[in-house]
């Protein structure tokens, strides 16, 4: 349904410089499937989401192809894109507090999305908006409230109601549950899977979020979820979540997953597994593998050239260690 091939995005900097942020991304999503994108901040996850809907600033250079139901979204005129945004591909943004209009009641904001794509009467719009607010577990009376009157979890639900309102075939969710406590995060993620049959592209830095998602997808849709692990604008490992959790192959994936489930007794003052150093910066990428400086299994070749993506069974890995 969605095919992304060799996607390269560079942001324009001062003095005509270009900073490559996505450096050749390939993936595809089938109808109803859930694809997770896992990576630390600054690895290009959000740029990936925004590039699919052509929401990046005009000065950005986007190369490669993004094919959605046979159309290349990168060459589509703005008028056609507007028909796709919201109706066929919906997006749940990272910070719901700033994604919603602060001076418009939230019910109106849900109506607005439907109104952009359907030629319905005001009454019917309102009815439909209330219906979707109810579906995401909110009381319809909340429709009159302004964003500042609602909690973080409620705002997140309003955004989900907006995303569901035109029954899209693909929903892109950028950190759909960040800033909430773990119980609320799980509830939100499970609800998204329950309320729609759409394919989901979920961007997150928390492996536990993907775990919750894949569990409910397996239960409700009988599908396994796949994950792309991103580092410095490249996919370093891709495979099913189960494979990754049981036997991650790339040193970065292994380290990232080790961070998320530290072992040891509470109170023992045992040091946690951590990846040394900071994430690679796009401004100072060296010739070799971007993870080389932080990698515990680096070899001489890692600093010399970039590893290619190789297939190992059903997974793709970008590393020399294999």
């Amino acid at each position, binding site marked *: 349904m969605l095919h992304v091939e060799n996607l390269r995005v560079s942001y324009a900097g001062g003095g005509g410089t270009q900073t490559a942020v996505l450096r050749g991304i390939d993936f595809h999503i089938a109808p109803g499937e859930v694809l997770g994108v896992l990576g630390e901040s600054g690895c290009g996850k959000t740029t990936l989401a925004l590039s699919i809907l052509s929401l990046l600033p005009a000065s950005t250079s986007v190369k490669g192809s993004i094919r959605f139901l046979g159309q290349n979204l990168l060459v589509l005129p703005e008028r056609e894109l507007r028909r796709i945004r919201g109706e066929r591909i919906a997006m749940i943004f990272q910070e719901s507090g700033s994604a919603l209009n602060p001076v418009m009641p939230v019910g109106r904001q849900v109506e607005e999305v439907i109104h952009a794509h359907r030629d319905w009467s005001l009454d019917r719009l309102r009815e439909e908006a209330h219906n979707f607010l109810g579906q995401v577990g909110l009381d319809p009376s909340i429709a009159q409230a302004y964003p500042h009157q609602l*909690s973080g979890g409620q705002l997140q639900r309003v955004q989900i109601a907006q995303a569901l309102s035109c029954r899209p075939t693909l929903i892109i969710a950028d950190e759909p549950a960040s800033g909430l406590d773990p119980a609320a995060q799980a509830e939100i993620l499970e609800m998204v899977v329950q309320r729609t049959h759409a394919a989901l592209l979920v961007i997150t830095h928390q492996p536990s979020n993907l775990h919750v998602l894949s569990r409910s997808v397996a239960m409700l849709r009988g599908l396994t979820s796949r994950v792309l692990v991103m580092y410095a604008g490249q996919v370093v490992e891709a495979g099913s979540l189960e494979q990754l959790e049981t036997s991650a192959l790339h040193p970065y994936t292994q380290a990232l997953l080790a961070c998320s489930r530290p072992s040891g007794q509470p109170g023992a003052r045992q040091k946690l597994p951590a990846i040394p150093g900071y994430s690679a910066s796009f401004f100072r990428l060296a010739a070799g593998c971007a993870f080389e400086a932080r990698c515990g299994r680096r070899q001489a070749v890692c600093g010399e050239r970039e590893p290619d993506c190789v297939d190992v069974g059903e997974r793709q890995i970008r590393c020399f260690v294999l």
Partner: protein
Amino acid sequence: MTIRSGTLLEARNVSKTFTRGRWYSDCGVRALDNVTLSIQSSSTLALVGSSGSGKSTLARCIAQLEKPDLGEIWFDGRSLANFTQAGFRHLRKEIQIVPQDPSASLNPRWTAAEIVSEPLRVQRWGNEKKRYVRSLELLESVGLDNRAPHQRPYQLSGGQRARLALARALALEPRLLILDESLSSLDLSLQAQIINLLIDLQATYELAYLVIAHDMTLVASMTDQVVELCKGRIVRQEFFPC
């Protein structure tokens, strides 16, 4: 590994209500309801609970940024209610707080060295030269490199800014450090790095921590006591022997 010598902080039956609407109306939010807990020196108490359960209010009461309506808070054998204004000035050295969003609390126009020496200046510690030298030591102790002292917050990454906020809180050698979700906005590996650093600092400075966390998985290793709040009440209290 840690030396535990008596109670450092004690909260006795602390309650706090925030009034909504007019002051005489009785519709209020009971943020804390009869909370009693104690922290030993050089130990860690983790405060958990869903959002809106009163965790931050309790932290703010302990840090003297908020006054409890009822109940008393004792620090090092003295009740905070009996302190004079001058006494508070001294007390502030002992209890420091790292706020929820550390980056937002850093002055964007100051260099890291200036940010770290501000609390020293406020407390009239040493002279300008000595404060500068001390700030370099502090920045080094939290693992920032030798370029950092002259950089401004926007030139630092999120993890480096969290370290900077930590260095500032440590400047006055407090005995209790309150971390109000200070790490939750960071990547997992950075959170783990900082928690490892906190474990080391606790051993060096004999610090006690009050850590507020959504999620216990990462902080469990350094925790001696967990207190869970729900709607302002303590619903679980658990000690980890070590």
